[in-house]
């Protein structure tokens, strides 16, 4: 970690080692900002805690930005952004779907899920809570919830945390999680196409799901970065 961090000095084309105190301060700031970003994004996924999460996340992002302005040897900005978007995606779905599956009888969870369903996705609205597991009663949705909750999103959260720490296995696991996202998105869109009733009799029938869903296509675009990034950044 130390070697790669010292090589990560900004605007040095020949990778001159940074002074030790700058490296230590950069690592300290990175650590604090990472904790803020992580907790903020986790709170962003927790339904009604989102103003707190938004504040924590923006504070962490501004901390890293100020440290970069001071020419400290911070990690590259794109690594922070990609890890943050992976965390935001994972937590937004992880805790939301976890509430839908395991806490579907709480009032806030019911309002959040059924309100979202009545606006955008009827699968979360019609006959909500009707099956034994609880939550969305639509065909196919529960299987995707289980698959993503127990396989994809834990893997992606672990990969994003390790991306914050510039581990080598973070690169590999991120590639795996991106391909798993593509493998998940294709049947999910087919589910929307075949069982098109979930887009009927709601407030914003098709435009709503595209308005909400375009952000979840980022792994397709981020995948080339993982293949073309300089591998020597990830030395641990």
């Amino acid at each position: 970690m130390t070697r790669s961090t010292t090589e990560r000095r900004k605007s040095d084309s020949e990778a001159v080692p940074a002074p030790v105190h700058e490296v230590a301060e950069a690592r300290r700031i990175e650590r604090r900002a990472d904790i803020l970003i992580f907790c903020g994004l986790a709170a962003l996924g927790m339904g009604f805690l989102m103003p707190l999460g938004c504040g924590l996340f923006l504070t962490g992002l501004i901390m890293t930005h100020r440290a970069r302005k001071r020419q400290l040897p911070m990690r590259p900005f794109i690594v922070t952004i990609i890890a943050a978007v992976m965390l935001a995606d994972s937590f937004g779905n992880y805790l939301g779907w976890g509430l839908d599956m395991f806490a579907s009888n709480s009032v806030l969870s019911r309002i959040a899920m059924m309100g979202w369903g009545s606006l955008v996705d009827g699968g979360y609205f019609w006959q909500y809570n009707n099956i034994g597991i609880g939550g969305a009663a639509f065909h196919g949705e529960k299987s995707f919830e289980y698959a993503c909750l127990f396989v994809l999103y834990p893997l992606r959260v672990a990969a994003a945390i390790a991306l914050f720490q510039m581990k080598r296995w973070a690169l590999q696991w991120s590639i795996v999680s991106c391909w798993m996202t593509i493998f998940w998105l294709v049947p999910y869109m087919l589910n929307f196409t075949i069982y098109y009733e979930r887009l009927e009799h709601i407030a914003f029938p098709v435009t709503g799901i595209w308005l909400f869903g375009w952000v979840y296509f980022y792994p397709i675009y981020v995948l080339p970065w993982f293949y073309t990034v300089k591998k020597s950044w990830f030395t641990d």
Partner: protein
Amino acid sequence: MSSDAHTANETNIAGEGERPDDERSQHRLLHRIILGIAFSSLIGLVIENTFTQPFILVYYGFPKRSILEVCDYLYQISYNDPRVKCTFPYPLFGPPEPSTFPASDQNFGPVTPPVPPYQVPGFREDIVLPQTVNPAPPSTSGPAALPSLVP
């Protein structure tokens, strides 16, 4: 000096500034595009996660209605029954909530996949059609014959 620092800052924003010159521009445009997409997706995710739930509450009239009334209202639309109430607190490990609702046979909502409007024997008719074409012979003696699912 400031312009040089600014240029270096610009090149480094996608993590490209520290590469040697010969390999600097190889994936530079790709990485900048990816940074833009990832950043806009991040902003979109944060905005969605932040403002969806307040928008839902306000959309269904939260300051005028209480949270439980909003929940009742959503259930009444979803089950198309004005008698339905949002039970709270619900017992832990209780049965599925609609089993506690008053009996109704007009639940609205999709249950089965749609049937095409033209007459074609599909998978739904795999069992019905052979039974109508070749009905099972009536049993003469012995125990009652099982209904023949396979022709």
